[in-house]
């Protein structure tokens, strides 16, 4: 693997990590807005 490809792969891993984290946050927020506490913890009892 060339040095440039290796550097690109490393940088891709950094951005993939950031995007995955932001995606996870966005999904958690959407679930919370749609389902309340159950969005945070799906094992929690359903709200009345």
């Amino acid at each position, binding site marked *: 693997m060339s040095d440039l490809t*290796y550097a690109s792969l*490393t*940088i891709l891993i950094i951005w993939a*990590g950031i995007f995955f984290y*932001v995606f996870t946050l966005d999904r958690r927020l959407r679930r919370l807005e749609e389902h309340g506490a159950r969005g*945070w913890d799906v094992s929690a009892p359903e709200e009345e």
Partner: protein
Amino acid sequence: MRWWKAFIGLWIAVVIWAAFNWIPPAMGLGETSRIAWFHIPVAWICVLAFGVAMVTAIGYLRTRDLRWDDRSAAAAEIGLVYAVLATVSGSMWAHKAWGIWWNWDPRESSIIILLLIYAAYFALRAALDEEVRRAMLSSVYSIVAFITVPYLVFVVPRVMRSLHPDPVINTAGGGGMDGGMVMVLVAAVIGQTMLFAWIHTLATRIRRRSREALYV
């Protein structure tokens, strides 16, 4: 606020383009030096996030308003994620530059200690059910934890022998970087800082909404 997100995306896209096309590889480090324009800002956000966690923890202790605790925990969470990314990217760079993934260099050891300190912060939060008690104890912990950050990040790597490139940004001429490299690095740091500000609002909203849904 969509324009703000678009602006951050555009800024970062320009930084990525410039890091690969506008500046040459650094002398002696070759093409792998391009990792630095992303690894350093990630490490910077790690320190910034832990700093924000401490300042907002002080905010909680002064006001006893749980919204400050939400901000503090959100910042610590982002700091932990960025610390993992800095560790992974640093290790990958070390593999190419030093021929070894990990050699317990002072900077590598420091970030592992930081990871453990802030992992313990979340273990503490998870162990406490009562929200006021949790906010109180974790705020105190966050303040004490941050005292170690300047020591581990700025002091230890400078007083101990290290293979890590010595202060990449220093006061004596930018550590051998030319003007273009400094510009890209500063732009990358600004881009990551703006991204942090946005992620922090997102993570804070999640913590506030989940707290309100569970306790109100």
